[in-house]
């Protein structure tokens, strides 16, 4: 990958995380801090534990991504935080939601939709400014499972899985609450490789 392309990729994922954070703040009506923002190449066994390796379940939503850059986008949080998010969105006292009913699931799915689309729009604007293929998300799929199995399944969705994997890893914290959630994008290696071999722009669009 050329230096110019790498810089543009890093800028694209950074802008995606910032725009996702801003969209979450607007959606919740609260300030949101982007506390982690990394683009990193990890051995697959390390990548499988980025959501944690404990026994407590996480819940969240996954979106399959196709188009100019394919892959899988995952918004995940621990149970308590995600139920707290549902309470906020359903305008009910904190602690009201104790189990995953239809309403709570809908609240998380809608959040993933809003944050995910803001993230992908930012990627699209930087990576494919003149490409009408764009970047297209599937409808979000809700899931609640062990952190290691969620991440493992996300990795296994990639058609060209090697020993290492590129992850764009962001964490959002909502001011005044203990809520934090993680947005992880696993780009399809083949798609990214094709992108990486394009001639780099002399001046990356910032």
């Amino acid at each position: 990958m050329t230096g110019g392309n790498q810089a543009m990729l890093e800028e694209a994922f950074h802008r995606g995380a910032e725009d996702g954070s801003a969209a979450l703040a607007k959606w919740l009506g609260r300030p949101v801090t982007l506390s982690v923002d990394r683009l990193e190449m990890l051995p697959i066994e390390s990548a499988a534990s980025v959501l944690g390796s404990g026994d407590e379940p996480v819940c969240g939503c996954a979106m399959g991504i196709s188009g100019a850059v394919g892959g899988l986008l995952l918004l995940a949080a621990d149970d308590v935080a995600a139920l707290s998010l549902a309470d906020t969105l359903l305008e009910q006292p904190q602690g009201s939601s104790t189990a995953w009913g239809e309403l709570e699931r809908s609240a998380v799915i809608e959040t993933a939709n809003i944050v995910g689309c803001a993230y992908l729009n930012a990627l699209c604007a930087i990576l494919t400014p003149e490409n009408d293929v764009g970047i297209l998300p599937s409808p979000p799929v809700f899931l609640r499972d062990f952190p290691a199995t969620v991440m493992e399944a996300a990795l296994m969705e990639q058609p060209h899985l090697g020993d290492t994997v590129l992850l764009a890893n962001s964490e959002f914290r909502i001011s005044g609450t203990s809520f934090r959630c993680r947005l992880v994008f696993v780009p399809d290696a083949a798609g990214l490789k094709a992108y990486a071999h394009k001639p780099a722009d002399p001046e990356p669009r910032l």
Partner: protein
Amino acid sequence: MTTPAKPTTGEPIAIGQIGVAKGEGVLRTFVGSCVALVLYSKRHRAAGVAHVMLPAAEGRVGAPGKYADTAVVETLRLLADFVGDTDIGCTAKLIGGATMFSFQSGKPIGDQNVLALEAILSRCGVEIVGRICGGRHGRRVAVDVATGTVTVETTEHGSETL
């Protein structure tokens, strides 16, 4: 290429790793669409667990525990080395192979992993005595080395033993 055996129990066995133990203890792992290949020798009270990720190595030289075809052979070899007996006489259990997302077209990778392991175990003359495979959820797997009993837990559907 060989895999370093993981003789101690406790830490979950990561993707592509193989863990072996004998006598007592618990071997643990988490699997989604990957498959936990559990080999157990009752005679030696020894267990081996491979966390299998893909059906075939196809020439790749990564850790042998990652691929069904190399994981079976390597786990058998590690177990034999560990107990010091080439005739270990073990049986197999398979856990995992779920399809947690379905964004990809074609046969799910979890199903391919299970089918590949079944074929290779049959070729190696290892009987499969239990399996909990498929579905749409991840599984926590714990192998009791003293008895060979496998406990399989999910977040939403309770636990089962094999």
